[in-house]
Structure formats: structure tokens, C-alpha cells
């Protein structure tokens, strides 16, 4: 097949870094009062259309005069932390900061749609810290200056413990607005009981022998990326022409009756129920599914490449307790904390050192717990190897909303027939 482009974060950073603009610095420092007057007209935005790293003085200006308040409201996705919240209890015991933890984020689209109006109007959304996926909404938050610029002097654990590739992401160069919570890989999952020859390539998703048994994602970014990568194109470097070619390739797959359905999260149940034999998949799910149901589904990072996505912690610009929020942010990068989180979440942790701690925990445990912790520590889906990392690609980055909508309109007709 085509030779995979090596995963070179530095290159991405060079491509995506923008000039700093003074206007943005001003925008960050104070949301205009005019925003409120406009709010009645429905939805409005603010900010320019190019993402910008914050100016030094913007960071200083934002954090000036902000002090610890002793509490923080944290919005996360469901089941992204042990319900007993051991990490938060530890945090409160050590810092005296009380955490209100709520699992209110279900999907990026709706979350953006419900928080954007409030943030643009300069109102608090009731949360000081939120976990958001890299992707178009992340970019829109940044472009509209709705996220607080991070003061890295307060992020010492992050600096010490976060994996190198997480410090150089294309979607948030230099972690100006976010630090990673957990990452996952979008690859292929299949049922070896039904698929006799091992799946190794994206092109296998186009094989007619699996007619009606292939699952693809309904998310246009995820779907489009596979179309791009099977054509040998790196999503992060793709152009509109590549998109059209990818869409044609995906249309071929659909018209040949190969695709059973374009799935959301439910693909994993479809795989479990035998509805599909081979499907686009998120890494952590397959791991969990095998643990839950005793199945033996395989997850592969295809030869042509797979995408990595990251859920990130960010502070909304209107946060009431930003200092407490950034303290909590940094706390999650302590190796012991990252380890217990990874033991529960089973997605890729941004703290590679956590593997050692999990192994220690496994050694100390017994029975079922021991087996489970060992499997977490050794899973390439939680701690991918360097070889795996080299095949991972970032999402398509959109310069502006018009391009994003063009992308959407190219791939949407495939999903919504």
C-alpha cells in the first residue's frame, strides 16, 4: 500500500500556528457588552475566523486578580470517572477545594449548541472546567474566544508528566486553551468468529464479501477520515478535492450495499449482536466490550492509518472559579491520579508513566481485579506502542466555518440518504 506519513507533531504545529493578533487579546480580556443586546436575535458569534494562540499579555490579563475560591464545578462525560470519585476526594482532602462533578456532556454538537449562546453573552454556564473533544466545535470555541487562555506556570504536573505527543497537538498548539483528559483511536473492530481472514487494512471495509455486514460511523469527520485515508490522504493535510474523492469512494461502498448502517455509539451493540461483522470503532469500547461480554472482538489500527482523537479539559471564559479549575486540571496529571483514572476509563491516558503504577496496583491485587488491572496495563488500547502511534493521524483541521460546512455538505448525503 501507500507509505504512511510519520506522525510528526512538530510539523503539524508549524502548519497550524497563526500569527498573534492584538484584537484577539482584547477580545479575550473582556467580552463586549454589545453581545447581550444581540442575543435576542437568536444565535450570534464573535471573534474572527482564524484560530490564534493567545498573546502573552492576554494570559496575564485573564489571570490577573483571579484567586482561589475553594470550589470548582466540573462538567464531564458520563462514566469518565469512577462514580465514587476517589480522585476528587483526594483532591479536596489535599487542597481544600470542593468539586461539584457532573456528567452533563453527551455529545459535542448539543453541548456546543447549548453553551455557546451563554458564553457569547458573557454569562456563566455554571461550570469552571469542561471536557471537550478536539474537532470543529473545539475550533469554534477557540475562534470565538470562549475558552480561557491557560497559564502554564500553574500546570507543573502537566509539564512534567504529559506524554510528548500531547504537548504538540495540531488542534491546540502549545496547549494554549486545553490539556488532554483521555484519547482514543478510531480504527476497525471485527468479529474473528465471522470474519475468517484477519482484517489489516482499511480497504477491507470495501470488500464485497462482507456485503451488508460493514458498519461505518455517521459522524462525518470520522467517516470522511476513513475515505481520505483509504485513498492514501492524511486527513490533517487534505484539500477540498481530496474530500470529494473520498466521498466518491464512500459512495461506492454504500451503493454496493456493503454498508449495513452508519452508526453512532450504537455500533458496538451492533457488533455484539452480529448485525455487523466489521466496523469502524473507538478503541476503548472494544476493550470494554470484551471485558463485559467475554467476547473476543479484535481492534486493529489499519495499515493505511487510523485517527486519534482527544477529549480535553478546558476552562470556559466565563468561569467563576478559574484558579481552582486550573489547579484541578493540573492535579489530574499526577502519575498516581492518572493511573487510577486510566484503570477506570480504559482509554489512552496522556500520562505514559501511569503504566508503571497500574502494574504495581496489579501486582498488589488478586483474583479478578489482578487480571483486569494487568490487562489494562498491557493493553495497546490504553498504552499504544510507538509503532501504533506512528500510524495515527489527526482530524481534518478547518480554517473556517465555511470550509467545515463544505466538508459537511460533501459527506452528509452519504449518511442521510
Amino acid at each position, binding site marked *: 500500500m501507500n507509505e504512511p506519513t510519520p506522525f510528526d507533531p512538530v510539523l503539524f504545529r508549524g502548519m497550524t500556528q497563526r500569527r498573534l493578533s492584538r484584537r484577539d487579546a482584547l477580545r479575550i480580556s473582556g467580552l463586549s457588552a454589545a453581545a*447581550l443586546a444581540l*442575543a*435576542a*436575535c*437568536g*444565535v450570534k458569534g464573535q471573534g474572527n475566523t482564524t484560530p490564534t494562540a493567545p498573546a502573552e499579555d492576554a494570559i496575564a490579563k485573564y489571570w490577573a486578580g483571579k484567586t482561589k475560591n475553594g470550589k470548582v*464545578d466540573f*462538567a464531564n*462525560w*458520563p*462514566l*469518565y470517572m469512577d*462514580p*465514587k470519585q476517589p480522585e476528587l476526594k483526594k483532591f479536596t482532602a489535599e487542597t481544600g477545594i470542593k468539586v461539584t*462533578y*457532573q*456528567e*452533563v*456532556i*453527551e*455529545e459535542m454538537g*448539543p453541548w456546543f*449548541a*447549548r453553551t455557546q*449562546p*451563554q458564553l457569547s*453573552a458573557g*454569562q456563566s*454556564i*455554571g*461550570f469552571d472546567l469542561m471536557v471537550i473533544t478536539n474537532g470543529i466545535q473545539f475550533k469554534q470555541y477557540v475562534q470565538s474566544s470562549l475558552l480561557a487562555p491557560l497559564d502554564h506556570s500553574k500546570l507543573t504536573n502537566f509539564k512534567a508528566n504529559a506524554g510528548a505527543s500531547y504537548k504538540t497537538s495540531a488542534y491546540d498548539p502549545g496547549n494554549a486553551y486545553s490539556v488532554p483528559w483521555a484519547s482514543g483511536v478510531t480504527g476497525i473492530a471485527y468479529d474473528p468468529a465471522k470474519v475468517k481472514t484477519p482484517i489489516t487494512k482499511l480497504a477491507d471495509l470495501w470488500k464485497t464479501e462482507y456485503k451488508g455486514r460493514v458498519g461505518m460511523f455517521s459522524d462525518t469527520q470520522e467517516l470522511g477520515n476513513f475515505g481520505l485515508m483509504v485513498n492514501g490522504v492524511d486527513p490533517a493535510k487534505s484539500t477540498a478535492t481530496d474530500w470529494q474523492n473520498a466521498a466518491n469512494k464512500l459512495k461506492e461502498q454504500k451503493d454496493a450495499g456493503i454498508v449495513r448502517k452508519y452508526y453512532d*455509539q*450504537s455500533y*458496538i*451493540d451492533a457488533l*455484539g*449482536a452480529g448485525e455487523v461483522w466489521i466496523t469502524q470503532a473507538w478503541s476503548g*469500547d472494544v476493550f*470494554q*466490550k470484551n*471485558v*463485559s*461480554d*467475554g*467476547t473476543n472482538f479484535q481492534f486493529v489500527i489499519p495499515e493505511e492509518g487510523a485517527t486519534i482523537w482527544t477529549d480535553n479539559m478546558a476552562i470556559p471564559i466565563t468561569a467563576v472559579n478559574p484558579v481552582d479549575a486550573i489547579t484541578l486540571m493540573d492535579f489530574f496529571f499526577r502519575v498516581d491520579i492518572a493511573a487510577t483514572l486510566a484503570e477506570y476509563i480504559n482509554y489512552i491516558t496522556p500520562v505514559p508513566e501511569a503504566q508503571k503504577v497500574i502494574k504495581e496496583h496489579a501486582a498488589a491485587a488478586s483474583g479478578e481485579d489482578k487480571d483486569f488491572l494487568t490487562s489494562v496495563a498491557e493493553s495497546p488500547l490504553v498504552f499504544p506502542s510507538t509503532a501504533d502511534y506512528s500510524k495515527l493521524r489527526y482530524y481534518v483541521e478547518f480554517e473556517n466555518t465555511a470550509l467545515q460546512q463544505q466538508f459537511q455538505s460533501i459527506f452528509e448525503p452519504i449518511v442521510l440518504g
Partner: protein
Amino acid sequence: MTTTLSTPTGADLEPTTRRRRRRLGDRLLFAYTWLIILWLCVPIAVMILFGFNDTKGRYNTTFQGLTLKWYGRLFEIPALTDALANSLIIAVLNTLIAGTLGTLVGLALGRYRFRGDGTTNLVMFAVISAPELVMGASLLSLFVASGVGLGIPTILIAHVMFSISFVAVVVRSRVLTLDRYIEEAARDLGAGPWTAFRLVTFPMIFPAVLSGGLLAFVLSIDDFVITNFTAGTTQTFPLWIYGATRVGLPPQVNVMGTLIFAVGLLIAAGNVIAARRRPSSAR
């Protein structure tokens, strides 16, 4: 049973044959009714079953043996418990408020012709036909513009908004077929408007009020889209569940669903027993 009322008068050639045929028809209808109720409960049975599933991990879609442990660990997820409590509070308040306001609107639309009744009808129908997404998004903009914080009150406002029409439409259809002279007769006999309403009109429209109220309850406790926009930091049962499906629903959700259903059945059984004790009403 109501059949006792049906003593046919006059020349009835073969009353027994007809009665027998009717009894057969009744039996068939009775069986059919229960068949439909069972059909409606089929997914509930599956839900109950998976509340007993001894799943090892996070997914709960393959049955792996019976266990009672999820009942013991029911309140282990505080956010889920809070979400359920919120949902119940909102649903009850919604039933009361939308039930009252909707009944009044339904009375007006069913009984009177007035300037603006056409517009009111149009608005009622528009609420029912509006996609939830735009209602939710537009309400959010309104709340943001007016600067009120989001929470249970804004969720309730939204739920009442879309429930009113459903109640009003049901009540209106009932009022339309009512004999208005009965209430007027009561007034002629000296009853005040309130007394006439309480003793005559309300009992006549009660089945519609009850149906409308039940529909309002169901609409509220099951709403996801509009709630998602108007909830702010508040969680409701559907919001939590919908979010959890991304990573796998914990069996506690099934247990809570089972308990809701069981409480419902107990209420129904209580009603049946209470009705046995009361003398039968005419109908």
C-alpha cells in the same frame, strides 16, 4: 358491567343470539386490549430482565446470568439518583401546571367562539408540529437574552410550554361534544358559575383532564431534546441515560426503570382495589 343497562325494549326477535354474539365480541375486544397492553410492555420486560443481568463490565446488552446485586447497589451513582429525582419533580409539577392551563384553554376553544380562537388553535397546532430542536434552541436564546439562570425552573417552563397544547387538544375534543345545556340548566337552578363548573362541567370533562394530565406527565418525564437546551447544570433522567449510552448503560438504570414501573403497577392495583370497594358509578 354496562351491559346490564341494555334491556332492549319492543319487539326483539332473537335477543339471546344477539346477546351471545355481543358477548363473544366483548371477549375478543377484552383479549385484544390486553394483547396491546402486553405489546406495549414487551420492551419493559427486556429492561427488567437486564436489571438482573450479571454483567462483568460496562456494557449491559448480553445476558450473562442472574444477580440481585444491582438492586443492592442502586444508589451507588449519586448523579443518576439526583437526575431521577429531578425528573420526577419536574414531571409532577408539569402535570399540575400544564394540566390546569391546558384544561382552561381547551374549555375556551371547545365551548366559545371568539375573536382570536382561530389564532389560538393555530398556535396550539404549531406547538405540536414544531420540531423540538428549534423550540429548545430558541428558548435557550430567550433565556440567555433575558439573563435568567438555567435550571429546574427553565426546564419546567419549557415542559409546560409544549404540554399545554396536548392537554388543550384533548380537553377541547371532549368539550366540543358536551351538551352545554346541562351546565346552563344547573345555572338556571341557581348554581353559581363555580358551583356549576365544579359539580357539572368538571365531572363531565374529567376523563379528558385525566388523559391530558397523563400525557403531560409522559411528555415531561421522557423529554430529551428541549431539556438538553434548557437544563444548564441540572441533570434529568433522560439526559443522564442518553449520555451514558456513549460508554455503556449501568444496570442501575434498568433497576430504576423497573422500580418506576413497579410503583406504577402498585398504584394501578391500589386503584382497582379501591374501585371494588366503591359502589359502581352509572357508567
